[in-house]
């Protein structure tokens, strides 16, 4: 792909060297696109995102972002490279106020920006800026996490199951924000259990199973494909559950 923003090639990685969770995984994320990673539980989806973020060591393979090799990047250098990471849970500092959370994220950017554009985009956060983040609802917390990711004006946001544990309405809102961001020029790599909603909004999708590439296709084509059901229902993965409605 000529305009690939991120390309991961032949990635083998895991928390301990002799126990790889991902084996020979390759994905690409084009600029300003919403790329979705789906797969049964234990497929290594979240691990893939953590490897890109520098939180899980790489055994072999390369990660290239905007032409630079970022394999084994130190996690605190991520934002300065133009990448933001939104973890699945515990993705805001609960003991700090909303404005302190955003200040911290802005400082990480080193740009000395102001939080005002973020408050304008997420008015609900502006209303509660003096409240502790721990007092927010699940959906509001995800919005704060996304706002913190945006503080650094990243070209790529890695999102790990942003809709997990949210009501269908809140999940829809968060995924809607993700889609809107790509229209503003930011690329998103999204891991989701909420397969139908994610594919409906995504551009391209990669299916992982048992730590390996299984399939990649246009998101909406995949949504209509019978293969999707097979991967979740059978496919030699005894523990695989139909994850489509899990987070509803």
């Amino acid at each position, binding site marked *: 792909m000529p305009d690939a923003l991120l390309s991961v090639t032949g990635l083998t990685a895991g928390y301990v060297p002799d126990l790889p969770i991902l084996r020979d995984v390759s994905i690409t994320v084009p600029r300003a696109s919403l790329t979705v990673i789906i797969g049964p539980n234990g497929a290594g989806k979240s691990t893939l995102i953590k490897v890109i*973020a520098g*939180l899980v060591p790489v055994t072999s393979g390369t990660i290239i972002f905007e032409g630079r090799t970022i394999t084994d990047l130190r*996690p*605190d*250098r*991520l*934002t*300065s490279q133009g990448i*933001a*990471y939104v*973890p699945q849970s*515990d*993705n*805001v*500092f*609960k*003991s*700090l106020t909303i404005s*302190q959370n955003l*200040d*911290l*994220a802005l*400082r*990480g*950017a*080193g740009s000395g920006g102001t939080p005002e554009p973020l408050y304008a985009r997420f008015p609900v956060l502006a209303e509660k800026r003096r409240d502790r983040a721990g007092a927010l609802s699940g959906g509001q917390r995800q919005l704060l996490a996304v706002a*913190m990711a945006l503080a*650094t004006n990243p070209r790529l946001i890695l999102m790990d199951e942003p809709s997990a544990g949210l009501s269908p309405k809140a999940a829809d809102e968060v995924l809607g924000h993700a889609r809107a961001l790509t229209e503003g020029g930011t690329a998103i790599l999204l891991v989701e259990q909420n397969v139908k909603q994610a594919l409906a909004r995504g551009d391209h999708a990669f299916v992982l199973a048992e730590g390996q590439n299984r399939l990649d296709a246009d998101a909406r084509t995949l949504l209509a494909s019978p293969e999707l059901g097979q991967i979740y229902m059978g496919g030699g993965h005894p523990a695989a559950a139909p994850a489509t409605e899990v987070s509803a």
Partner: protein
Amino acid sequence: MIQHLVDGILVGSFLSLGAIGLTLVMHILRFANFSHAELLSIGAYAALVGTRLFEVLHPAFAASIGPLSMTGALVLAILVSMSVTAASAILFDRLVFRRVREKGEELSMVFASFGMALIIRNLIGLGFGLHPQLYSQDIAFAMVLSRDPLLLVKPDQVFVLVAALAIMAALHLVLTRTGFGFALRAVAENPTLAQVHGVNLRAMIAAVWLIGGALGAAAGVFYGLSYQISPVMGRDLVLPIFAATIVGGIGSVYGAVAGGFIVGIASNLALVVLPSGYSPSVPFLMILAVLLIRPNGLFGEARA
């Protein structure tokens, strides 16, 4: 009774300084550091060496300041000692704790800290001798604050209290008003998230040891000014400092301050009803009581 209260407040001032460093290290690095009190010993002895050096450098430094028994040399030596002790704490982390930490075994960290405590304590004994020493041979006369009830306070003790409170106030400003303070709180709550938002974890860990070492050094010197310094002072202080940390709640700087004063005052007031031989048991009883009634301490928050 009031004399015991006053003495307790003074003991509390250096216990608090020790407990602040311990609570930060325990919160950020998640292990019970039994060698923390040895930083107080290092600080106390570094100040002793510093004092003697400054006294030789210029005779004016050897003169006592006003009513204090302490000299200008000691004031300068405290600053040097804080730097030396902070540097030692960072060095111990590089040499020992970081290696154990990277293996990821929490219990090994605790045992390593026991080992470090023994090594440091005995090295100090080897270098300086086992006998207790004083910063100044001058006898400090106590000021009589009141005759009935009799209330005596040494000028040095007033200095210790004022200096300890000033250091705590400075730390409070750093933690609540600076980006560094927020980053530190962020690391304490969620190190991974702090990292992906650009906080350099290694630098923050070094900063925590730096604060712990510098405050520990001040506490050690203040202890030495109030009593005397000896290689086993760390052994005598480790329990009250842990008690202060646990009473206040691990991770809470304000808890550590409150815990230090509570333990200091309680230990001294206990002298009213208990024979003095039993006073080392008071911190134990306080740990027990807090763990039974409020397991997270007075200011601590439950955490996973």
